[in-house]
């Protein structure tokens, strides 16, 4: 157990539990594609230090929403597997997993990372539905950034399955066609503890932190989603500093995506 006071005193000296600087990611960060290639249309494994997350994409046909008859849909789901941490419990989705899923979902949905119109097969009748399911395998901090990165990696890895003569999905055969991607959102979460900011926290640091802000950037530097978390307040000055830090640091994650 490493207490808040101790973490705070380290930050005052410009360092952290594992000797990193406050604005430093763990090393190495890695992405592996096709980890469930037999069953998922797209899949990936992301490792940031000892945190490991897998994500998979399943594609299926469905009917569009009536208010968007010519657009496909996306659904992002995160399940905090008790396999991955002694702190996660079996049972219905916890509020933490719901928040993670919704923040990851928004980051992809709101910037139209996928061109949803191109997922329409027949207006008002048939569209592609994209299901992204994300699972931590070893949860050792910073799931927000790891889940978002894994989701994008799996989406990039995905290839459409073939359709048979009746326009049904033939899961056994895949085309070479990737999903129609128009943007690549990358998420960077900045955490605040006392008057200090840090990124890529370990679990003890997450527990000690007062607040966090997840900021999602697209290639041109625009921000497409944001979430402030935990129960302490932040000031306008904090927000500015956190956005500036995130903007620089998200580039390191972006480099990892091929």
């Amino acid at each position, binding site marked *: *157990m490493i*207490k808040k006071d*101790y973490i705070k005193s380290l930050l005052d*000296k410009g*360092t952290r539990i594992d000797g990193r600087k406050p604005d430093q990611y763990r090393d190495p960060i890695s992405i592996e594609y096709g980890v469930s290639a037999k069953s998922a249309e797209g899949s990936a494994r992301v490792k940031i230090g000892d945190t490991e997350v897998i994500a998979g994409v399943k594609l299926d046909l469905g009917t569009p929403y009536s208010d968007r008859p010519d657009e496909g849909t996306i659904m992002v789901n995160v399940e905090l597997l008790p396999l991955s941490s002694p702190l996660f419990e079996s049972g219905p989705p916890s509020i933490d997993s719901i928040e993670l899923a919704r923040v990851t979902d928004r980051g992809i949905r709101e910037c139209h990372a996928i061109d949803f119109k191109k997922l329409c097969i027949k207006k008002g009748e048939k569209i592609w539905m994209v299901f992204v399911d994300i699972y931590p395998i070893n949860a050792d901090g910073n799931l927000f950034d790891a889940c978002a990165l894994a989701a994008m990696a799996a989406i990039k890895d995905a290839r459409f399955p073939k359709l048979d003569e009746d326009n049904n999905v033939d899961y056994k055969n895949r085309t070479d066609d990737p999903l129609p991607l128009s943007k690549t959102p990358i998420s960077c979460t900045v955490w605040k503890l006392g008057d200090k900011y840090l990124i890529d926290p370990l679990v003890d640091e997450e527990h000690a932190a007062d607040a966090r802000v997840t900021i999602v950037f697209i290639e041109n530097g625009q921000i497409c989603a944001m979430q402030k978390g935990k129960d302490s307040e932040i000031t306008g000055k904090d927000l500015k500093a956190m956005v500036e830090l995130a903007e620089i640091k998200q580039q390191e994650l972006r480099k990892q995506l091929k």
Partner: protein
Amino acid sequence: MSKLLIENKQVVIPGDILAEGMDYLPASGTFREDDKIICSQVGLVSISGRLIKIIPLKGKYVPKKDDNVIGYVKDMTYSSWFIDVGYAYEASLTLKDATSEYIERGSNLSDYYAVGDIVLANITKVTKEKSVDLSMKGPGLRKLRGGKVIEITPYKVPRVVGKQGSMISMIKDSTGCTIFAGQNGRIWIKGDNPAQELLATRAIQLIDEKGHNPGMTEKIKQFLEKNAVKKEAKK
């Protein structure tokens, strides 16, 4: 004619046949099946005379009487504290074992130990169902202020301590940190600066990973020398 099928200090796994014949006797981590002695636990074989036992390498802490452990105060009543010592159920520390001071009736117990405090305590009793009683009366037992606690495999703690405390003394001397090792795998570290604490942490984690290696003392010595934190120049 009895026959040993393994060597002393060899790594063994459940299901390994360790010896044939009735001359050898199964001890902890082994059992007899017909005329064979079988291993039931991942570990190192230890043969002493006719006894064959396993020194475990992995597993969660199981409380034992007389162990000194590092605990976290979790809860309290008007007459006792509940302390997490790393086992499934919390241990209890009663008023009469809490301190050698006289505690007056009606005093505020959190003046002594509050929820969240870290303590070095001694296990005085373990029942069959693993209910654990603690005492804070004894040399060295106390509340640990500041610093940090890292967790290692409880079975590696003797390696961290070393023969007559040789290993832990070496780490303390070369990093200048104060270190307490609880038998429950928790190690409390406090030093003058973060770099020294990190060096002590890394050395202990190295022992945790490779603890039964011959020549470990020499390896840790080299590790500490190689990574020694440069002393700040005196003003």
